[in-house]
């Protein structure tokens, strides 16, 4: 028998497909929900009817770039950075500002070194798991099955890694700069959630919206690009006296978070979706927020 017929991926006896399948389901669920939530353009704000300082804002809609005040569950126009919804953006689905915002965290996550592993394995199946043969030409497989043409199964695939079309993954560093700005914006939203009509207090929503930037911060500040810029690019920490302690210590902190990058990637992803669900349900009046303001 030929060697190639013996040394195949069929030798793996464990359930290697569980991990990519869970990742596939997890990421697909988030993509479907976030697309739906972004499309709505309403019920992303709650302040119990008051228009003063404070309130809960969904992270999908933060910062409030434009506001279409005619929709329910949106903040007052005073909260808008650039005013009411402009004419030139009327083509956006649902007239939703979320489309303008989500592009930044999405590009950060899409080019993230952890998520690359996750979706290369789960979506492009190259490879689906370690020591498992890549399933090449996934789109052509569909046509192969429908045409009954088995020869088309493995056709038309040339592996270029991240040198061809995927060269754009190198924008990760720039996506990271924007992601860091968002941590500050969402931290301000958490601060805002401690107030209602200018009165200090807290509720379940405050807790949820406070945990959100913490988890996102742990994910973002554990990024490999930050690790590189915070000292990973140096060959010698002790060669320069002023860099000695500061650079090495900050590199070590980022490294601590970086070792848990996968954990925080998932926790922050789930929590940001959960935050939107909570604010939406409270804003729609489906659930009541338990808080110290008594509303």
């Amino acid at each position, binding site marked *: 028998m030929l060697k190639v017929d013996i*040394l195949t991926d069929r030798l793996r006896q464990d359930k290697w497909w569980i991990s990519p399948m869970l990742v596939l389901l997890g990421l697909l669920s988030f993509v479907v929900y976030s697309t739906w939530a972004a499309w709505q353009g309403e019920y992303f704000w709650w302040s119990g009817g008051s228009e003063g300082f404070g309130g809960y804002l969904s992270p999908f809609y933060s910062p409030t770039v434009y506001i279409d005040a005619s929709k329910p569950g949106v903040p007052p126009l005073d909260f808008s950075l650039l005013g009411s919804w402009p004419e030139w953006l009327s083509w956006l689905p649902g007239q939703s500002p979320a489309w303008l915002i989500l592009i930044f965290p999405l590009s950060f996550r899409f080019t993230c070194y952890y998520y690359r592993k996750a979706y290369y394995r789960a979506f492009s199946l190259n490879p689906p798991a370690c020591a498992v043969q890549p399933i090449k030409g996934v789109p052509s497989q569909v046509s192969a099955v429908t045409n009954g043409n088995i020869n088309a199964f493995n056709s038309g695939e040339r592996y270029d*890694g991240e040198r061809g079309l995927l060269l754009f993954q190198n924008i990760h560093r720039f996506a990271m700069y924007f992601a860091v700005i968002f941590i500050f914006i969402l931290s301000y939203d958490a601060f805002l959630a401690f107030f209602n009509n200018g009165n200090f207090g807290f509720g379940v929503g405050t807790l949820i919206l406070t945990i959100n930037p913490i988890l996102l911060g742990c994910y973002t500040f554990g990024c490999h690009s930050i690790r590189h810029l915070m000292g990973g690019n140096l*060959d010698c920490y002790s060669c320069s006296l002023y860099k000695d302690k500061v650079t090495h210590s900050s590199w070590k902190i980022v490294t601590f978070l970086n070792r848990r990058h996968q954990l925080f990637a998932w926790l922050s992803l789930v929590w940001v979706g959960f935050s939107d669900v909570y604010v939406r349900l409270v804003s729609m009046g489906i659930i009541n927020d338990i808080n110290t303001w008594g509303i």
Partner: protein
Amino acid sequence: MSLRNFKIYRGDDERGELVSYQCEVTEGMVVLDVIHRIQADQANDLACRWNCKAGKCGSCSIEINGKPRLGCMTRMNEFEEDKTIVITPLKSFPVIKDIVTDVSWNYKQNEEITPFSPSEKSKKKDFVMMQKDVERVQEFRKCIECYLCQNMCHVIRDNEGKKDFSGPRFMARLASLEMHPMDEADRIEDVKEKHGSGMCNITRCCTEVCPEEIQITDDAIIPLKERVVDRFYDPVMMLFRKIFDKKERQKTKSKVSSFLKMFF
């Protein structure tokens, strides 16, 4: 003691077969012990490579039930007793005989790397390296060159990437030289062009398989990729270098002056 079933690849690089064996397995045995017992009792001509039996020489790299592993570090009690264990050679390299492969391609990759080049300053007697400066480099020194990562890397294993990519082992070696406080050679262009850092798409199988638990992806490949981004894809860093880097500044100066000489 129990009688267990095994299938071992017997053949060469072209043809072969999985031959069934039965072997008595006693407490504490590892897969390499089983191979030796079969070799001694049933198949004297069974070829296998081994040396230290302690997970430190990297000689007994094989695939056990389709997963690349060290034969001497894989205990028999982790497998279910009624399941047949399949032992095959490393898939990414040519088979010499049975489960022994020719890994000489890796030695050629190593030769392609610019060797350690200490700077004049570092050669001086009073040059001191602090522990924190060498920690990162020391991690890569744990490598036992078992080539399990090279075998597991799907670029080499399944995507015919041997001509474009040196593989994770040599990305780790490049990182160990690039990050060395004494070294002054510049290998970043080589990392991108000659060693093909762009071929790696961060699927992390090399890290998962490493018996020394070296964080190959996080500590070697990604830092090298980031250094490549610094050099080739980040205009902010390029500008920063042009202004603050002495060598770059001199290069730019000479380019500008030679350009001006064309007119004046």
